[in-house]
């Protein structure tokens, strides 16, 4: 029998604090609150059942994301849907629900996000919104860091096109990121 962790650390407490992120990840990924909450419930139960495999001190958020992501992935496969969603059927189904949002801005964005292929969608959400590093995102998705980077880049390009954002013209990077941009371009 394994020793209980330090008394101030509780698996339950750490899961609780990760729940807002887990839900946001689920909703962003599935494009649907109801679907996401079912995924979150499955994730909580799975995570609880295998809590011995979680190493205290490592990133609980990334660990839970991995479980939810794999659950979503396997559910899609079970339904016989192509992950790449080339025919857009899944996208259509996902786009039915965004009325839950009052803001047109949010609805537009959710629809555009839902049109991305699954691998690009998860990559840009993980790197661009959840605060995970490229390395952690790669671990969640079970792929190389370079793969994550190229997926994020393709996702960003497609979103820009879909949302008719001309990049720098709308918001424009500030001086700091412009400097980063030119350094990156130069390297």
């Amino acid at each position, binding site marked *: 029998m394994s020793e209980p962790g330090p008394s101030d650390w509780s698996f*339950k407490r750490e*899961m*609780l604090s990760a*729940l*807002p*992120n887990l*839900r*946001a*990840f689920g*909703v*962003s990924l599935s494009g649907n609150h109801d679907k996401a*909450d079912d995924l*979150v*419930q499955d994730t*909580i*139960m799975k995570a*609880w059942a295998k809590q011995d495999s979680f190493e205290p001190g490592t990133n609980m958020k990334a660990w839970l994301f991995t479980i939810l992501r794999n659950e979503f992935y396997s559910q899609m496969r079970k339904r016989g849907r192509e992950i790449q969603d080339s025919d857009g059927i899944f996208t259509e189904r996902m786009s039915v629900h965004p009325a839950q*949002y009052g803001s047109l*801005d*949010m609805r537009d*964005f*959710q629809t555009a*996000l839902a049109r991305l292929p699954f691998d690009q969608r998860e990559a*840009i*959400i993980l*790197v*661009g*919104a*959840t605060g995970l*590093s*490229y390395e952690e995102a790669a671990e969640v998705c079970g792929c190389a860091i370079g793969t994550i*980077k190229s997926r*994020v*880049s393709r996702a*960003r390009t497609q*979103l*820009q096109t879909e*949302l008719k*954002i001309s*990049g*720098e013209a*709308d*918001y424009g*990077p500030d001086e*700091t*990121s*412009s400097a*980063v*941009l030119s350094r*990156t*371009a130069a390297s």
Partner: protein
Amino acid sequence: MAEDKPERKGAAVANIDPALDAVSQRLRRYYDSVKDEAIPDRFLDLLEKLDEADKAHNADDSNERRRT
């Protein structure tokens, strides 16, 4: 809207893709809007139940050991 600006910590700036652009800002707004919602009670209840079940189970185990 000013508070929606992504944090620019040293490490993050070095790590970001060329410019945290308009797309990234909207993505983060969208994600954060869900993150800021209240956690549904069903999840809090579920965690409580799982925790209680574990405790009951562990208590059974130690009773078992005491008997043998």
